[in-house]
């Protein structure tokens, strides 16, 4: 469980320890901003409360890392993109406000693929973050900095966002827990939007119990985000003790690393020994989830990112003759190549002549994927799958080949299209010492039971 501050171990001590570790692991390039002054000030306030005998929150003095796409007044919120350089938000994200109200202390903002476009944290304006187990390898992404900050034990937990795997894949690359909740569980108010119909907020932790606590604190309806569900989380009931666990037959093929397939089989044997039943599932539409995802999500990106024009906030290109030139110069200089690819693909699939063949077709494929999950959960309680086809790859290995990078998301994106929750869990190491992860998938609103069940797999 997370260490909270008390009379003997002060919040100031916890914060100073975390800040020392931030410095120690500097060469991993985890943080885009270090909140030294703000964190120490908040720690002193909590220590004063404890000294006076006042009640403190459930996360009193707990140091955490904030993904750089959550708005808060501490530091600049840049989503690790040049175009947001200089943006100090006057607004605080609801999730941040809830964590801080419980006494959590933000140590720093974490590096990410710019605007969360990527699966390696190499598409960042601040350069790549390095993997916790091998510095020559990627952290995964897009929430790479957050995953490594938890894996190296710099902080107790970190926030992330998951639009197609951006929490689960870096969690599995760094051997920590990473949850993408049911769509609509945690308010997205004050979080930089990527694709509104799939974006979710979640966390990286070292234990299932920590994840449960963070969900209890942050889940629930927010009048500032009309796409939040009424709080189902606290009221959820645990599942029966003996469960049916589905495995997807199509994922057991040669495009998936042999060590990941072995780890999955080993976990299945362990579950059987504990009295659970393994059910084989046919889910043929999942094969098309990645293609549907890379149509729907860029379309929403093209729309959401049209707001970045250099006028109201962030970076503005100099020397523009007129307003139109200002827009173009700002966006051309301010976006990373992957941002540009996705915006242009989005505009392509939405443009007249191609809308029916691409966007509408993908929306129909999405219906089939939603239905396939509903059918699967009539045959089993949870599904256990790989998170990604391989463990962490080498820095630079895929960055020049967008389709190879997209294939990283092959087994994670369908959850976002269906809105169902997924929890990445550590599943041992490869023979070379790289982290292995698996993903537990549940029906909508099963998040609490999913977290509880993951203890069976420790």
């Amino acid at each position, binding site marked *: 469980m997370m260490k909270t501050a008390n009379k003997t171990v002060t919040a100031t001590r916890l914060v100073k320890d975390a800040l020392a570790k931030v410095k120690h692991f500097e060469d991993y390039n985890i943080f885009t901003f270090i909140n030294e002054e703000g964190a120490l000030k908040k720690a002193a306030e909590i220590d004063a409360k404890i000294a006076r005998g006042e009640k403190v929150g459930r996360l009193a003095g707990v140091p955490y890392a904030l993904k750089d796409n959550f708005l808060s007044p501490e530091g600049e919120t840049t989503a690790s993109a040049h175009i947001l350089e200089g943006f100090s938000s006057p607004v605080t994200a609801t999730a941040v406000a809830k964590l801080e109200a419980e006494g959590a202390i933000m140590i720093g903002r974490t590096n990410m693929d710019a605007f969360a476009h990527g699966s390696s944290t190499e598409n960042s304006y601040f350069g790549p973050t390095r993997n916790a187990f091998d510095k020559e390898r990627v952290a995964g992404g897009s929430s790479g900095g957050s995953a490594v900050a938890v894996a190296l034990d710099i902080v107790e937990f970190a926030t992330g966002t998951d639009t197609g795997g951006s929490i689960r894949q870096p969690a599995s690359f760094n051997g920590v827990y990473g949850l993408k909740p049911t769509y609509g569980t945690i308010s997205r108010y004050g979080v930089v939007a990527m694709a509104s119909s799939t974006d979710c907020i979640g966390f990286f932790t070292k234990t299932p119990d920590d994840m449960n606590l963070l969900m209890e604190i942050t889940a629930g309806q927010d009048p500032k985000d009309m796409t939040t*569900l009424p709080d189902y989380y606290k009221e959820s009931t645990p599942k029966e003790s003996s469960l049916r666990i589905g495995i997807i037959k199509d994922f057991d093929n040669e495009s998936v690393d042999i060590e990941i397939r072995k780890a999955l089989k080993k976990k299945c044997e362990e579950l059987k020994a504990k009295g659970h039943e393994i059910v084989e599932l046919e889910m043929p539409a999942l094969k098309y989830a990645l293609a549907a995802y890379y149509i729907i999500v860029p379309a929403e990106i093209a729309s959401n990112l049209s707001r970045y024009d250099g006028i109201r906030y962030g970076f503005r290109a100099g020397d523009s003759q007129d307003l139109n030139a200002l827009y173009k110069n700002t966006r051309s200089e301010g976006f990373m190549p992957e941002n540009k*690819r996705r915006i242009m693909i989005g505009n392509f699939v939405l443009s007249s002549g191609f809308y029916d063949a691409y966007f509408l077709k993908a929306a129909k494929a999405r*219906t*089939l994927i939603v239905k396939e999950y509903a059918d699967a959960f009539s045959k089993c309680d949870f599904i256990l799958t790989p998170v990604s086809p391989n463990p962490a790859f080498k820095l630079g290995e895929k960055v020049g080949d967008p389709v190879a990078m997209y294939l990283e998301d092959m087994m994670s994106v369908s959850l976002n299209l269906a809105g169902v929750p997924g929890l990445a869990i550590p599943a041992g190491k490869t023979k070379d010492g790289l982290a292995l992860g698996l993903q537990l998938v549940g029906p909508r609103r099963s998040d609490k039971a999913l977290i509880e069940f993951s203890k069976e797999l420790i």
Partner: protein
Amino acid sequence: MEIKREDIVHLADLSDFSLENDEIESLGKDLQGIITYISQLDELNTENIEPTYQVFEMENIWREDEILPQDATREQLLALTKEEKDNQIKVPKVL
């Protein structure tokens, strides 16, 4: 489908990007690869299937049409722009 240079120029224009020649070339190559990949959806039979645009289980969340207290003041928001004059955001000429 094959993506031509003029398609890239058109998409860049729709996206408000001004691209240099080498960027038109490299993005053209990348976009061609991506479009070839996503075109595999053609194989999937979607006859008589309705589209899904969102997976939120609720619809029509209403609220009173009233101004609620805002998180940021006018001054705070204006302070975020690069050039401000008389409480307004200054930009280059429009025409």
